[in-house]
């Protein structure tokens, strides 16, 4: 097949998948929200969960984006070195955003820096954001789509602590941010923590952490235990759905890490709102695809 034809097919596949991601939550998130909903007993928390699930049903029925803030579209690409369209993939992803913006439709969320104008098509300087990793010698790519909404992005931050602050400093930093900012970010939240030796590495790891499916754990048993401690502790804050108090605050806490410099201990924090619009798709060299995040979806 000619590559121009392949590019067209891939572009349409990605545009359709962006549309799905905006309108239907991934299976693991729906499962977790159902679980948390059942633990709430106050009338206010129950009323909020009722609205959330009513909204998910209406979004499916009317084929509309779950939340009006369809975010800045981000792609995290894990590429095989022999994927035939590797060099064209960036262009394919940009074009797929342009199409989805009109067809879905998506809200216009790309505002150019300094000129401060909305481009009205979700395409701007370095946006959609594409993060690349070459992971193996294969001929497939796996792409995570994430719709980074404004409310969920507001608590995002990174800091470099001195090692004397210890991991205790990380705990304090996350809790301080959650109490001041988490309540506005549409809880229950998925919390991503990046731990590394410099701020930018910690920040990107924290974003990758919220792309991990619910129920997965840090590979180091100490890291996995840290995730559990943080999840339990954040839930004990009792922030509840929409910050209006309740029995849970988070859908989960995920940590991603990179070795640090002896002199620095950096922490990055990213949060995903309850409407965690993430999707995982694998593109193959014969132009077929496999969706991992949303069972039963055909594009």
């Amino acid at each position, binding site marked *: 097949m000619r590559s121009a034809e392949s590019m067209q097919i891939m572009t349409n596949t990605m545009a359709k998948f962006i549309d799905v991601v905006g309108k239907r939550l991934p299976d693991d998130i729906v499962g977790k929200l159902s679980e948390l909903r059942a633990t709430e007993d106050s009338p*206010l928390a129950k*009323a*909020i969960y009722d*609205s*959330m699930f*009513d*909204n998910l049903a*209406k*979004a499916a029925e*009317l084929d*509309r*984006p*779950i*939340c*009006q*803030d369809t975010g800045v579209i981000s792609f995290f690409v894990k590429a095989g070195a022999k994927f035939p369209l590797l060099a064209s993939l960036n262009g394919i992803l940009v074009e797929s955003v342009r199409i989805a913006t009109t067809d879905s*439709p*998506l*809200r*216009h*969320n790309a505002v150019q820096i300094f000129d401060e*104008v*909305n481009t*009205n098509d979700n395409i701007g300087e370095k946006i959609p954001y594409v993060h690349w990793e070459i992971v193996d010698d294969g001929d497939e790519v796996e792409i995570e789509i994430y719709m980074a909404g*404004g*409310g969920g992005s*507001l608590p995002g931050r990174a800091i470099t602590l001195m*090692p004397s602050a*210890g*991991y*205790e400093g*990380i*705990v*304090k930093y996350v*809790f*301080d941010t959650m*109490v*001041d900012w988490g*309540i*506005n*970010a*549409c809880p229950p939240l998925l919390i991503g923590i990046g731990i590394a030796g410099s701020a930018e590495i910690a920040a990107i790891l924290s974003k990758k952490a919220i792309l991990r499916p619910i129920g997965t754990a840090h590979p180091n048993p*100490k890291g996995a*235990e*840290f995730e559990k*401690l*943080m999840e339990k*502790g954040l839930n*004990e*804050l*009792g*922030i509840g*759905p*929409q*910050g*209006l*108090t309740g029995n849970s605050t988070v859908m989960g806490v995920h940590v991603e890490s990179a070795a640090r410099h002896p002199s620095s201990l950096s922490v990055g924090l990213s949060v995903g*709102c*309850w*409407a965690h619009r993430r999707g995982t798709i694998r593109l193959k060299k014969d132009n077929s695809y496999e969706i991992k995040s949303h069972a039963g979806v055909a594009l």
Partner: protein
Amino acid sequence: MKKTLKTPISSEDLEGIKIGDIVYLDGHIVTCRDVAHRRLIELGRELPVNLVGGAIFHAGPIITQEGDKYNMISIGPTTSMRMERFEQEFIAETGVKLVVGKGGMGAKTAAACKEHKALHCVFPGGCAVLGATQVEEIEGVEWADLGMPEALWISRVKGFGPLIVSIDTQGNNLFEQNKTIFHERKEKIVAEIAKNVKFIK
């Protein structure tokens, strides 16, 4: 018992409504967020919509257009705290009675709600299709130069809600009260976790 407010809203209509109550809205609501607040308060531009007794929504919707008709596809709240810098003066200048958004607002907005008898309410965040189905019609748009999220969209709504009252006309502030509780709990929880994360030794 479902409490429904109707625009134009009077100070008397809001008497007895307390933080944590759930109300609904019939009538008109106008989207108004970051730049519209800045234009009125900081840049001194006249707001092209009369908000006396009215309602604003901190929201940036998704809208489609067919000819000269607009369709509300998806509309939910944005973070109200971003408007805290301007809201006190905004309430005083416009006579708005109902400010809807998500998350809490601060002491200055609470003072304005008390002085001018207004409410801040939360519409459940992320519930934007629910919101859109409560819009009967988009009656107009102003400051369209700001783009789809920031323009002033004037909607007629029916049974719009649930709206959870976060600041009442006495100036009580639900989120600030909750925040105090969260901060108290936080100190204890952080101290407990800290005992178990001494990995550097």
